């Protein structure tokens, strides 16, 4: 909700100044570069992206590689991860090197985060445009469908639907989360399209005899999409948080996939005695989500001239 309101502010600035958008974006970019938090977030996300894309740069072990149950639950020699030793981050309950697992556990949450965002964004753009542009019956119908999905708490819906699926890969998880993630964005998109639909330049295009599809693609979408896109990107971090929660609950990804959420799930019974099993993936997860949030905050502030 709060994001909706805040984004709505961005929305206005985004839509109104589209004529002067070049200077808006370059102003925003300059404003961004001045922010420390922006750079902190970029560095963290770049690092995480590197872990996800090229895990072999950071560990020579494969996922679940060289696990030795006899070496299970070895505490790290010290809290300094750069200290020497075979397992600087310790080992998990199956005796896998915790650092290697964390490196390999990066890819799944990040891929799911973007996949879910992509699926939901696509749904939102299509449904929101149709709903906003054609109005009437179609709008009423789609709005009721949106209501239904709004009425279903996300976590509850995800847990129930995911359990129904026989396989629990990244794509299943992304599909289910994406299916539940679109309503807010769709409402935002619908509102945007509604506000642009009756603008003078759209009326003009209509009077010149442009067809609906052309009006939508050429005139409405470019002016309506920016705030929805910003909102979607702002919330990639939140999706990653949900992904980890589902993994933790045991209805998300399954062994042999490796993810931070699964690591936390595996260790949940023994956190009390081996807190590092909670702390390390927890910190990675939080740092990633936090970076997306900071990035989002920074972009939003930069795009909103009133806050300067």
């Amino acid at each position, binding site marked *: *909700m*709060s994001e909706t*309101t*805040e984004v709505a502010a961005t929305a206005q600035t985004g839509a109104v100044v589209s004529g002067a958008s070049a200077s808006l974006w370059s102003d925003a970019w300059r404003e961004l570069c001045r922010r420390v938090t922006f750079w902190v977030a970029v560095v963290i996300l770049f690092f995480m992206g590197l872990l996800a894309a090229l895990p072999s740069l950071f560990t020579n072990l494969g996922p679940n590689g060289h696990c030795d149950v006899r070496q299970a639950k070895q505490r790290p020699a010290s809290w300094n991860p750069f200290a020497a030793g075979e397992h600087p981050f310790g080992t998990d309950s199956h005796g896998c090197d915790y650092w290697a697992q964390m490196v390999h556990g990066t890819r799944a949450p990040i891929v799911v985060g973007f996949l879910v965002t992509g699926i939901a964004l696509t749904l939102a753009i299509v449904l929101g445009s149709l709903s906003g542009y054609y109005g009437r019956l179609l709008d009423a119908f789609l709005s*009721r*469908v949106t*209501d*239904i999905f709004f*009425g*279903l*708490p*996300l*976590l*509850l*819906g995800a*847990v*129930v*639907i995911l*359990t*129904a699926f*026989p396989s629990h890969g990244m794509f299943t998880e992304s599909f289910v989360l994406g299916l539940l993630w679109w309503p807010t964005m769709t409402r935002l998109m619908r509102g945007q399209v509604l506000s642009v639909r009756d603008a003078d330049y759209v009326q003009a295009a209509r009077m010149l005899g442009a067809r609906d599809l052309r009006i939508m693609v050429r005139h409405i979408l470019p002016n309506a999409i920016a705030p929805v896109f910003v909102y979607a990107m702002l919330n990639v*971090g*939140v999706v990653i*948080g949900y992904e*980890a*929660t589902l993994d*933790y*609950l045991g*209805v998300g990804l399954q062994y042999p996939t490796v993810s931070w959420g699964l690591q*936390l799930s595996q260790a*949940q019974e023994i*956190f*009390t005695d081996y*807190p590092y099993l*909670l702390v390390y993936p*927890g910190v990675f*997860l*939080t*740092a990633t*989500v*936090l970076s997306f*949030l*900071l990035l989002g*905050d920074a972009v939003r502030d930069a795009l909103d001239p009133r806050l300067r």
Partner: protein
Amino acid sequence: MWRYVVRRLLQMVPVLIGTTLLIYLAVFALPGDPIRVLGGDKPMPPAVYNALRHHYHLDEPLIVQYGKYLWGLVHGDFGQTLSGQAVSDVLKTDWSVTARLALTAWIFEMVVGIALGVWAGRRKGGVADTVVLSGTTMVIAIPTFVLAYSAQLLFGLKLGWFPTAGTDDGWPYSYLLPGIVLGSANLAYVARLTRTSLVENFRSDYVRTAVAKGLSRRRVLVRHTLRNSLIPVVTFLGIDLGSLMAGTIVIEGIFNLPGIGGQIFNAIQIKDGPTVVGIATLLVLVYLFANLVVDILYGVLDPRIRYE
């Protein structure tokens, strides 16, 4: 006014039907045969098997099953769990735990969230503002279950301030730590929303008028800014009850509270369809009623809204 309430109640019906249908389909499309699960490892005589299937209406088409379920629901019959207990009985015993937990979280996020938001929003860019903004970003970034385990470790075990599990100490003491954890992410949203709304209202013309009237800072804040600023916050707090209810799925497991959140999670695991649908229906009902109350409250706070 009453006509509005009645119309809203009628509007809730299709949403409720849609949501329960969604969950019903997901649950009963679950792979695996609940009757076999019920029988455990022992082979079941075909006659008994068929009788059980008939008893649970499993031999009929899904949509007929759903119709019958809905018919029962209208009469206050939530169906039976697979172990033969009435779902409404299960709800009755576990409901109070979850209601207390969610209420604790809700009160916490409302009181502390609004207070923090006001503290931060009184002076934009001040020390309080910076502290609250960065603190809340941090809290939002930590997934609830990571926060829950961390709080349990730190405040429960290390410091011993709160009981770590169970309901032995009764309300509110046993519910404080889980409630705070459950409410923390939403508290962050409440605080930020209050703050943003306050900052925006401070810029409004009518606050300038209030200052021009020679009112004290305090009176300007309390009488002319706060009430207007709380309008979006109230909306959030209403919608939020739904996500709090869903959050109990995670929290009740970690803090070992015997509520419906833990109950629904177990039911999903053992494919106990009636229980899942029953609890989900209840959660959705709570969410819809909370929304209705918020809409009515909205009109009390903002006289510009008219119920038509």
